[in-house]
């Protein structure tokens, strides 16, 4: 039977600036069906200035239990506890109904909010009312995304003796980290950390590596998912290709190299980079002459292995069964063209930080020489080793981040990688002047502040003040900014500008979130079950998230989160059982549980 203790409810107002919230009015109307609800107060009806006033109201209505409902109800708990105690009630009869904590965030979650409030009104803990049945777990795991997060999670699970399917969209694993030159704050070589792990993935008997593949559909319930995977036509046989490279020498088709962030050209038949795993060639249909025009076949003619290249290969679909899924899809960088005032896309020597990573990388298009961008024979703007060397470089922070016009959030990594890039310029071009323009310097991690101090001592000019615009003047870049601490207007000529672009969710993350039944934050990052206490699980059982797809973070944090996600998966596998998702419970099911427990 439902509880009979007379209960008052206080509704917090919805968090400002967010339109897509739980429908509070609907929740308030719903909860009236419980007869013990004696009063419902909205935030604008009750002043939180005087607890005695509220105590008088509580007494007047003879309220014995009080529920605070909203997104952050804990904020007002102490006030209402005082009011309740003043009204002669017990402190433990103040109960919070936290919508956000239990996954009721958006308008579509309004029913969940009703269930949360129904539990609170009847003094039944939400977790007790929402216990779900246990089902057996398929021990195989799917990891989506082959960057450092996916690699780390796959290795953790595979090393524990469990089978992993690692699905990667591009032709190689490695992700963004493979493109970087050094890592902060230790200045370790990124490839030296990453490539051994990549090789391990390629050789691991428990890992089935599926590169150039995409997850198309996910069906089933926690513990037993059926996943449809699209195997895009690679047109080169992975088993027989010996990676000799004869084909690529003769291939007439070209396209900007994805791995070099578009700063160099690659052939239509290519290997993404020399340390790629798998170290086999693939053909990009969009730039292949044969695929486009039906004529060419040069690669087939020169290939020393018979039947290795099949230009007419078609995409195919395979289905796998897994019990758990780890999403580690990473990010894309902010499109610097959107911030027109910096001239990216028009001024060749305004480069993004990712392009500069390739430029400064010993394995990059110039062998690590920092040079101006120049045009190749076909007028593509690329980095070529024989171009001139810039004498002054400005690094501009917060491009596309902390900006209401683009992304409101801080991308967290840009300050530190900018300092690292400044160091690399100083190291490689000792005569060059380096300027950093920042708003706030966020050196938040272990050894990071020390790294910042070190870069300052290396002679980099670090100036507080965001740059407002970059224009071309006398074949140089003219930068305008305010030196806030120096109280000066800065108009400076520089040779090259690096835009410290922020991180954004990938374009396909909305699609993926729908497919997997996991939610996204307003910014588009995947939503964790609890930001503080459970940052790896989602509200869907058996699906965990790791790396930047959950929110901007650096490599150490990504690796840590990937290991944590793997441990959650192993927990399920070792137990052999998994609880069904709470979100699959209907409001009626929770209501009947509440009635039983009250």
């Amino acid at each position: 039977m439902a509880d009979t203790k007379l209960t008052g409810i206080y509704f917090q107002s919805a968090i400002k600036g967010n339109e897509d919230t739980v429908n509070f009015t609907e929740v308030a109307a719903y909860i009236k069906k419980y007869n013990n609800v004696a009063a419902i107060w909205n935030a604008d009806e009750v002043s939180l200035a005087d607890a005695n006033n509220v105590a008088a109201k509580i007494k007047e209505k003879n309220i014995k239990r009080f529920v605070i409902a909203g997104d952050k109800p804990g904020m007002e708990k102490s006030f209402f506890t005082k009011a309740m105690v003043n009204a002669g009630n017990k402190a433990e009869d103040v109960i919070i109904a936290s919508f956000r904590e239990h996954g009721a965030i958006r308008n579509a979650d309004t029913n969940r909010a009703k269930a949360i409030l129904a539990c609170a009104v009847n003094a039944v803990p939400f977790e007790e009312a929402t216990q779900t049945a246990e089902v057996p777990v398929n021990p195989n795991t799917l990891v989506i995304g082959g960057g450092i997060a996916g690699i780390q999670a796959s290795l953790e699970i595979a090393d524990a003796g469990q089978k992993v399917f690692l699905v990667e969209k591009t032709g190689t694993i490695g992700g963004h980290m493979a493109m970087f030159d050094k890592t902060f704050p230790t200045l370790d070589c990124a490839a030296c950390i990453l490539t051994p792990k990549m090789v391990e993935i390629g050789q691991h008997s428990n890992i089935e590596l599926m590169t150039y593949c995409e997850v198309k559909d996910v069906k089933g319930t926690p513990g037993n998912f059926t996943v449809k995977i699209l195997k895009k036509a690679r047109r080169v046989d992975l088993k027989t290709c010996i990676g000799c490279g004869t084909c690529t020498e003769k291939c007439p088709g070209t396209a900007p190299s994805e791995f070099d962030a578009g700063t160099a050209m690659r052939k239509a038949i290519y290997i993404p980079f020399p340390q790629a795993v798998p170290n086999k060639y693939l053909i990009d249909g969009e730039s292949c002459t044969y695929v486009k025009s039906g004529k060419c076949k040069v690669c087939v003619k020169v290939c020393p292995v018979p039947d290795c290249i099949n230009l007419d290969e078609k995409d195919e679909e395979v289905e796998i069964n897994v019990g758990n899924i780890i999403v580690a899809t990473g990010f894309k960088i902010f499109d610097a063209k959107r911030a027109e005032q910096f001239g990216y896309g028009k001024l060749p020597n305004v480069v993004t930080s990712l392009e500069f990573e390739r430029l400064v990388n010993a394995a990059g298009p110039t062998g690590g020489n920092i040079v101006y961008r120049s045009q190749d024979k076909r007028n593509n703007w690329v980095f070529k080793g024989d171009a001139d060397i810039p004498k002054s470089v400005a690094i501009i922070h917060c491009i596309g981040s902390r900006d209401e016009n683009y992304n409101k959030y801080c991308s967290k990594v840009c300050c530190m990688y900018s300092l690292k890039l400044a160091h690399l310029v100083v190291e490689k071009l000792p005569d060059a002047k380096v300027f950093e323009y920042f708003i706030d310097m966020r050196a938040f991690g272990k050894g990071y502040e020390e790294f910042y101090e070190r870069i300052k001592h290396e002679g980099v000019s670090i100036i507080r003040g965001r740059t407002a615009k970059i224009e071309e003047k006398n074949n140089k870049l003219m930068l305008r900014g305010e030196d806030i601490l120096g109280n000066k207007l800065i108009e400076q000529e520089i040779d090259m500008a690096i835009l410290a672009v922020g991180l954004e969710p990938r374009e396909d993350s909305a699609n993926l979130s729908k497919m997997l039944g996991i939610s996204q934050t307003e910014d588009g990052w995947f939503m964790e079950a609890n930001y503080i206490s459970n940052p790896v699980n989602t509200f869907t059982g058996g699906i965990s998230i790791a790396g930047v797809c959950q929110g901007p973070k650096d490599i150490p944090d990504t690796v840590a989160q990937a290991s944590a996600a793997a441990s959650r998966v192993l927990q399920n596998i070792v137990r052999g059982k998994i609880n069904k998702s709470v979100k699959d419970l209907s409001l009626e099911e929770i209501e009947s549980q509440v009635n039983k427990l009250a």
Partner: protein
Amino acid sequence: MSQKVDPELTAKIEKFGKGTWNECFHCGNCTAICPLTEQGFLFPRKGYRAIQMGLKDTIAGSVEPWLCYYCGDCSKTCPRNANPGETMMVLRRYLTSVYDWTGLARRIYTSKMFEIGAIVFIAIAVLLLYVSFTFFPSGEGNWIGQDGGVLINKIAPWKRIHLGDWIMAGTLAFILISNVFNMWLKIIFKDKSVKIPFTAYITEVFDFAWNFITQKRFNKCDGTKTYWFLHLFLMLSYVVLFTMIVFFLEWFQTDTVHPIWHPQRLLGYIATVGLFVGIIYFINNRIKKAKENSKYSHYTDWTFLVLLFLTTLTGIMLHFFRISGMPVATYVTYLIHLMCLVPMLTIEVPFSKWSHLAYRPVAVYFANLKKAAYKKNLVK
């Protein structure tokens, strides 16, 4: 030099317009994107700092808000949507009240009721004066001249109107000039960090006059050519009409209807077009929120435009009633015209929006004085 922090300052300034200064995180974007900011006169960001810190004296002594012509580039690119352009506008309103020793500017800018009350009060005073000192065209007598136009000086003798003109203009000039003196005290005299070379006061006068006539600084604002031109045309038209009415009324208000090419009519028509086109353009901008600087309209912006519009409209009607020989309509329209014109001048010129006709060029002059001092290294 230390200065007192006024914790109530933000609350005070907030009464003058939309307050968004808590948004600012001091990235410096607005200053750097501004086409008018220059070394020694950095804005808008420094204004934010002063407001946030409650530095009342810094704000009172700052010339920078007047150097901004609100192109809106800062507001468009501000990463915090803090709207620096509008904050400069709010500061200009606040400063108008700071310079005004009568305290009326503050009352007008912070109370809608006070402003409307003042307009109505003056309009009624005008009505009473007009009825007492002019002649209603009735009964005996000839009110229409030989050329068919109303004998306007028989209805409202120019000498009587002129007397009223001069009393009003004298009062307004006294208040406005004393406020400008107050502005000089706060911006130049109290600033002990620079010593203005006396010669600069004379040499900079020419630039002051040139700037007043051409508004060349306004023209430096990016992408505001039409805006600048229409504003300049309106301003010059206003000056022409004001001069004719206050100094040459005998020549301007005649009983004879001159031919259309006569300078009296020609000048009058051109100036009327200047006023009318400008007003329509500005009203349209504000209704449609077409430009960055017309997105946020304070009620004083509207009263100014509406009064100016009504004055112009009744002025045109007055002219046509006069030349068409309609004495009663001429009499009534003259009255309504004055009931719009006088409140507009007495409220807007010394105490409200139109005071910028003095403060803006004077601010450029003061800034030039300081620049002259910087050049000669007379910085203490």
